[in-house]
């Protein structure tokens, strides 16, 4: 026979669980009622504006800590003579640049109930947003685009990204490996039935910044547009093969 206190605790836990369940049901939508982000999206341009490459609302001066500024200055001094960039070496930007900028190239979203895949055409960067099935901590490692988990809050998709590598080479928003990025995605349908995807990003990084960084990014739905491959190292490989052939012929 179970202990009365344990029965009471179990009863309270069950009630709490039911209450939480009810809250979740009331704040969430059924899977078939959620907005569908699937498709190809391009940079949204406000009427009369050139485009939102790095998102709107971006601060002019970043609230960087002195130690972070020193790291960035050291990096900038290194690459300044040849004006090198990661992209020039066929390396993707990583978050948040892949989402906010991506060179103005389109992105494709493939949405499933348990996972959302985002493919940025530039450098073929891919993000997997795991819905309700987070991998164990010991299975995760740092990456330029980090590890993303998502959840639905009504018709908004909330994505949290962690496990990022330190990235002083991000042109707009450099960050440490302690950065945490939260994106809120919302689908808006205009009066003319055109679809706009809006993301509000907040990046907190106590190692690099004294306060959170926020930015807004918008995309327009591009029906009929296909994402193109972005193989970038092929000329380098072919030139290398040519050099091997020249050496073999000597």
């Amino acid at each position, binding site marked *: 026979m179970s202990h009365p206190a344990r029965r009471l605790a179990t009863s309270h836990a069950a009630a709490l669980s039911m209450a939480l369940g009810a809250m979740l049901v009331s704040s969430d939508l059924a899977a078939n009622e959620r907005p569908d982000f699937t498709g190809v999206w391009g940079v949204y341009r406000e009427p009369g504006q050139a485009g939102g490459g790095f998102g709107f609302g971006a601060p002019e001066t970043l609230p960087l800590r002195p130690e972070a500024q020193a790291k960035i200055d050291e990096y900038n001094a290194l690459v300044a003579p*040849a*004006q*090198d*960039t990661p*992209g*020039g*070496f*066929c390396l993707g930007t990583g978050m948040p640049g892949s989402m906010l900028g991506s060179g103005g*190239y389109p992105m494709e979203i493939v949405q499933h109930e348990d996972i959302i895949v985002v493919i940025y*055409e530039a*450098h073929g960067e891919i993000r997997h947003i795991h819905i309700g099935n987070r991998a164990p901590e010991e299975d995760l490692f740092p990456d330029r685009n980090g590890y993303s988990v998502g959840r639905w809050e009504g018709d908004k998709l909330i994505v949290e990204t962690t496990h990022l590598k330190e990235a002083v080479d991000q042109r707009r928003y450099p960050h440490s490996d302690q950065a945490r990025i939260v994106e809120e995605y919302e689908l808006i349908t205009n009066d003319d039935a055109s679809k706009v995807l809006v993301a509000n990003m907040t990046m907190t990084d106590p190692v690099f910044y004294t306060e959170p960084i926020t930015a807004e990014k918008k995309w327009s739905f591009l029906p009929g547009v296909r994402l*193109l491959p*972005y*193989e*970038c*190292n*092929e*000329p*380098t490989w072919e*030139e*290398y093969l040519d*050099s091997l052939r020249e050496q073999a012929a000597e």
Partner: protein
Amino acid sequence: MKRLMILLLAAVLVPGITLAHHSASRFDLSVRDNEVSGIVKVFEVANPHTKIVLEITNEKGTRDVEFEGHSRNNYYRSGWRIGMVEPGDRVTLVAAPTRDGSDGGYALGVITEDGTRF
């Protein structure tokens, strides 16, 4: 001097480094109407940037000049298709010049002999 030698040696030993593309900040992208014509020697449409070499003849003489251009994906979306430009063709580039005034530039657009633009 030692550092320069190391860089030159690396460029010789590691072919990939010689191909590394740089940022477009060495070009004056505010200049959008500068046209340069020449005979195509190389027209390699690629990502992240296209490599174009033109034989140019002007007051400086005749020489090969290398230009950087948009990515293959961007040229495709602006109308470029395979075979549209071949070595030996005469083309005109709408090219942002280099900031230091040296030969070369960033090909914002291409005009082929028959007037096709991409």
